[in-house]
């Protein structure tokens, strides 16, 4: 029986996950299409990793429907996992094996013939720029190198979908950019990427489309640009006043933008013309310690949707 499948790689309807009394995912609907980079943006504890583990077919759903590559993870777990690449949040590399063996051994789990897996391992080492480290022990690698090796490992079976759970958490800026570059190349090759992140810049860099997740539910969905357009203004004026003055000051300038947010360390004024806001602030005799005008980001979208910042 051959059923026709569209280009939908992952489809969830009312997907839920509970651990005892704790409901980590409270009924989400998503659809990931072939070749797109799909993001889950949200703070720690939003339910992103639980969702990711269900998609990876390693954690059974507590309710709702989930279909991955047209298959049911409850029944076809091994067949689904054969075609997924998984880059987990924590490194699970074998620290006692060298770099090459980590790839080789992993490829063997997929039943890839020995000669083939050796060839793929060399190819992937080149791709993640670790060829010179092929005989190094994993424990001697830097954090960024370990992440790149993990990504190489997740590609050893030439997956249809690559799942990346917080791929750059804990990396320094240079290592992050190097990693983003590699992921961007994968995207250009047509790999379907599913990424969770609590970094708005990462979501903006990598995701074609994303859902903002908070407390186990989806708060909004769209492309980064659409979300910013829908939930924020073009620009944001950031004002810093002496500690303790923020609430009182915010009242005095509440009419200057479409919206004003008071954070512990600054006031955000949402307006399409940030420079104009600054002029008005100064015109009212207020003297902020520091000012900044910038474009709206997904961070602002998140703030608007949840009243909280992403990284606290």
């Amino acid at each position, binding site marked *: 029986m051959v059923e026709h499948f569209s280009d939908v790689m992952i489809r969830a309807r009312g997907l839920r996950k509970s651990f005892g009394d704790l409901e980590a995912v409270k009924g989400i609907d998503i659809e990931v299409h072939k070749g797109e980079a799909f993001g889950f943006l949200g703070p720690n504890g939003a339910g992103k990793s639980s969702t990711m583990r269900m998609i990876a077919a390693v954690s059974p759903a507590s309710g709702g429907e989930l279909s991955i590559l*047209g298959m049911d993870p409850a*029944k076809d777990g091994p067949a689904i*996992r*054969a075609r997924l690449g998984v880059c*987990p949040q924590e490194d699970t590399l074998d620290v006692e094996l060298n770099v090459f063996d980590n790839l080789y051994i992993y490829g063997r789990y997929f039943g890839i013939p020995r000669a083939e897996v050796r060839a793929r391992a060399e190819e992937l080492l080149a791709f993640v720029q670790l060829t010179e480290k092929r005989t190094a022990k994993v424990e001697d690698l830097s954090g960024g190198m370990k992440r790149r090796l993990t990504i190489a490992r*997740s*590609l050893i079976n030439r*997956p*249809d979908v690559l799942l990346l759970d917080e791929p750059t958490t804990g990396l320094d800026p240079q290592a992050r950019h190097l990693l983003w570059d590699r992921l961007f190349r994968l995207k250009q090759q047509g790999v379907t990427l599913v990424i969770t992140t609590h970094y708005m810049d990462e979501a903006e860099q990598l995701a074609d489309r994303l859902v903002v997740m908070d407390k186990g539910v989806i708060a909004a969905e769209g492309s980064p640009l659409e979300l910013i357009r829908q939930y924020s203004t073009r620009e944001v004026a950031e004002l810093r006043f002496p500690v303790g003055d923020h609430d009182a000051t915010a009242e005095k300038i509440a009419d200057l933008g479409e919206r004003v947010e008071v954070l512990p360390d600054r006031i955000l004024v949402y307006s399409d013309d940030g420079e104009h806001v600054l002029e008005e602030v100064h015109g009212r005799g207020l003297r902020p310690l520091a000012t900044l005008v910038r474009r709206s980001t997904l961070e602002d979208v998140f703030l608007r949707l949840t009243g909280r910042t992403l990284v606290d």
Partner: protein
Amino acid sequence: MASLVSTQPTGAEHGGRGRLSPVTGALRQFDYWLTVYKRTWKGSIVTSFASPLFYVLAMGVLLGNYIHVSPERLDGATSYLAFIVPGLIAAQAMQTSVFETTYPVMGAIKWHKSFYAQLATPLETRDLANAFLLFTLFRVGSTCAVYFVVMAPFGVFATWWGPVLAWGVTMLVGMAFGTWTFALSATVTSEASFGLVFRLGLIPLFLFSGSFFPISNLGPVLETIAKVTPMWHGVNLTRMLCLDTVDWSTAAINAVVLLAVMVVGWYAALRSLARRLES
């Protein structure tokens, strides 16, 4: 460069193939365990081969010089050395398997998380536990084989076939303990529990299950308790085979007990790993 991604069509049309067979699942980990073995065999020589020889020398030869009793009081052994060697080999089987299935299992779950990495592939918890236990079996088998070979020149074996069968028994002993220890290690969250296993499980079984003296010396109550332990069944069967004093009906009971403990233990190991990792 070649494509790093699949060009397969999506969906079930190219076979939503189900689970791997248990044999395939275990075989796919062969290269992994081979690599682990290549890396660790030199270090394990000291613990698994040298220390048993120290025991034989100290207790069998040197202490044995002070022990001169009739064979009836030594389960038919003509010397204390001949009596103690089968017991020590059976105990070695237990110890090897317990060590292989405590810290390494906890490490794979808690420290380096290799089980989680493996589960992101077509392998299932069943396959991980099977391969782990098969490797433990290999460790027990190879360690005990060397033990038997080294002991042969001491003239402690009555026949050539006895030790061969006894070698099979030591593997049964190893798996009777290894499976249950695996199940325990997959359940507990702290390595502190292992101290308890070693002190209250391993050491009493090692000392009081007939390895060093016939358990008739324990008195009727303790003797009955000792006879219930799988370790005694292992020691007794190993010894009867090595000394050619086999009482076949007792041997059958010994073998069935060990087999039953192993089979149920294997099931417990699979269950507890699944419960731990599939949440």
